[in-house]
């Protein structure tokens, strides 16, 4: 996935000088960019020791946190935006994390790899094997990605839970996907990016 495209879109949705919580912030690249471009006050939550060290080096506020243990330490509406990039699929209970994000943030930004992409579908349909792609390199038995979803799956969850989809963007890396992702995002996008609110 082209991280830059992903982050560029997110950046457009973040207000300058706002308070941002980044769940599974990794090495803090997104928050670092947001700090420089938008002067946000940001905190990143991360569980991986090496990524935490990297985020400290990146001068990010990084808080070691197990997202699956809940986020009750954060008061309601205590952040302007809660972001989670490419991590929904590793959560034990993605729907509960989404609810927590919407409780803590005025708005939320979620990005995830679209499992409805035709390459994933083809792998399963033609080869009868769980997809292993450039973007998703794990085997089924060692993958941390335990809750894959498609664009349609995600949107139906939002409908069920009365989550308002304010914006959606789709990213595709390769041609011809790039040209036609807008027509049929669930089939052609690699990454889906959503701006949500209650």
């Amino acid at each position, binding site marked *: 996935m082209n991280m830059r495209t992903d982050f560029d879109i997110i950046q457009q949705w973040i207000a300058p000088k706002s*308070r941002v919580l980044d769940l599974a912030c990794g090495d803090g690249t997104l928050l670092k960019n947001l700090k420089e471009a938008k002067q946000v*006050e940001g*905190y990143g939550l991360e569980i991986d*020791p090496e990524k*935490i*060290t*990297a*985020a*400290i*080096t990146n*001068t*990010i*506020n*990084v*808080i*070691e946190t197990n997202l699956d243990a809940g986020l009750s*330490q*954060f*008061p309601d509406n*205590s952040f302007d935006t809660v972001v989670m990039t490419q991590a929904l699929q590793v959560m034990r209970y993605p729907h509960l994390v989404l609810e927590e994000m919407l409780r803590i943030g005025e708005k939320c930004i979620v990005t995830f790899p679209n499992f409805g992409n035709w390459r994933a579908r083809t792998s399963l349909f033609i080869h009868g094997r769980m997809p292993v792609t450039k973007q998703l390199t794990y085997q089924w038995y060692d993958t941390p990605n335990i809750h894959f979803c498609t664009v349609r799956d995600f949107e139906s969850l939002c409908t069920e839970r009365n989550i308002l989809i304010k914006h959606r963007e789709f990213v595709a890396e390769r041609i011809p996907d790039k040209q036609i992702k807008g027509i049929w995002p669930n089939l052609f996008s690699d990454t889906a990016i959503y701006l949500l609110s209650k």
Partner: protein
Amino acid sequence: MPDIIPENSVGIVTPETLYFDEPLELACGRILPDYQLVIETYGELNSDKSNAILICHALSGHHHAAGYHSKEDQKPGWWDNHIGPGKPFDTNRFFIVSPNNLGGCHGSTGPNTTNPETGKPWGVDFPPLRVRDWVQSQARLADRLGIDQWAAVAGGSLGGMQAMRWALEYPNRLRHAIVIASAMKLSAQNIAFNEIARDAIKSDPDFRDGHFLEDNTLPRNGLALARKIGHVTYLSDQLMGNKFGRELRSGSFQQGQDTPVEFQVESYLRHQGDAFSNSFDANTYLLMTKALDYFDLAREYGNDPVKAFNHALCNFLVVSFSTDWRFAPERSQEIVKALIDANKNVSYAAIESNLGHDAFLLPNERYEHVLYAYMNRMANETPGFNQTDIVSPSEASL
């Protein structure tokens, strides 16, 4: 010490004694007319005095944090694992200042020094101290060294409490607070352990109501027992299991044998207690545990830690250890939560360790990585921060 000084050791160090003749008004209302602080420093202060780090010691600590006092020393200073050339508190880059706190028993004015009014040791009459008194005396130490602003104030346990108090009392005088295995206040369980330890000391007949120095005696048994109690709470069940298990030092359970049985852990504790009771002052132990018990970061801020931290301007690094049950990770998480709610810069690492509370003193790869990363970042963000503009300690107006 080892025959050859390791490259990452500060080597042989010599403490210095600084005299302060400006009276110090204490939190208890009493006034110390004058006092002395024993300190050690490692590394060199740079020309714009931007690379100084204050190390605050814990309950039984002192100024000797790194290196050796002589070739005969068996053990280096208490934080030698982390202070030295190339270590996280890198003495090639930072000027480390490590005082023995007031009320201590390693040379700074305290219960085992002379009360000028009586000409006798202060003993139990030494004024009770609070963490803020130490912080105030450390601020005067900074003045003396010409340090307007510490790059960081760092400490574990009771030392972490001092770092937090610094952030509230002198917000402009530190850029970072490094708070390790600490808490905003002790729990009832913690206070209970401290009270048992104090009881152990006071019930030793040689304590003589705190005037044992005048009577030329020492409450060794009481102090040793207090240390044993404390020591058990600084270790984890897991660590004691791994280290001692149910191994016997002497005797056996064989049928027909009635020789007394001693477990390894008993012998270890006895050794810890004995060593401590010969090197530490019982009144200092009482004073330090009371300071710990009384500490409550947010008390004067309506018991609201967010209101308290609103006063801070520095960045925070908070670190906890998984098996620390004396200053549990939850206590650190409370600090972190209050800091986030107060919109302060904070990073938090929850280190996996089976070493209990003592982990903050000991080597641990991940702990060191976190400290390295944070200290590197500190050095990188400081303008004029390099080795070429270092001045010699004699110029630093000690």
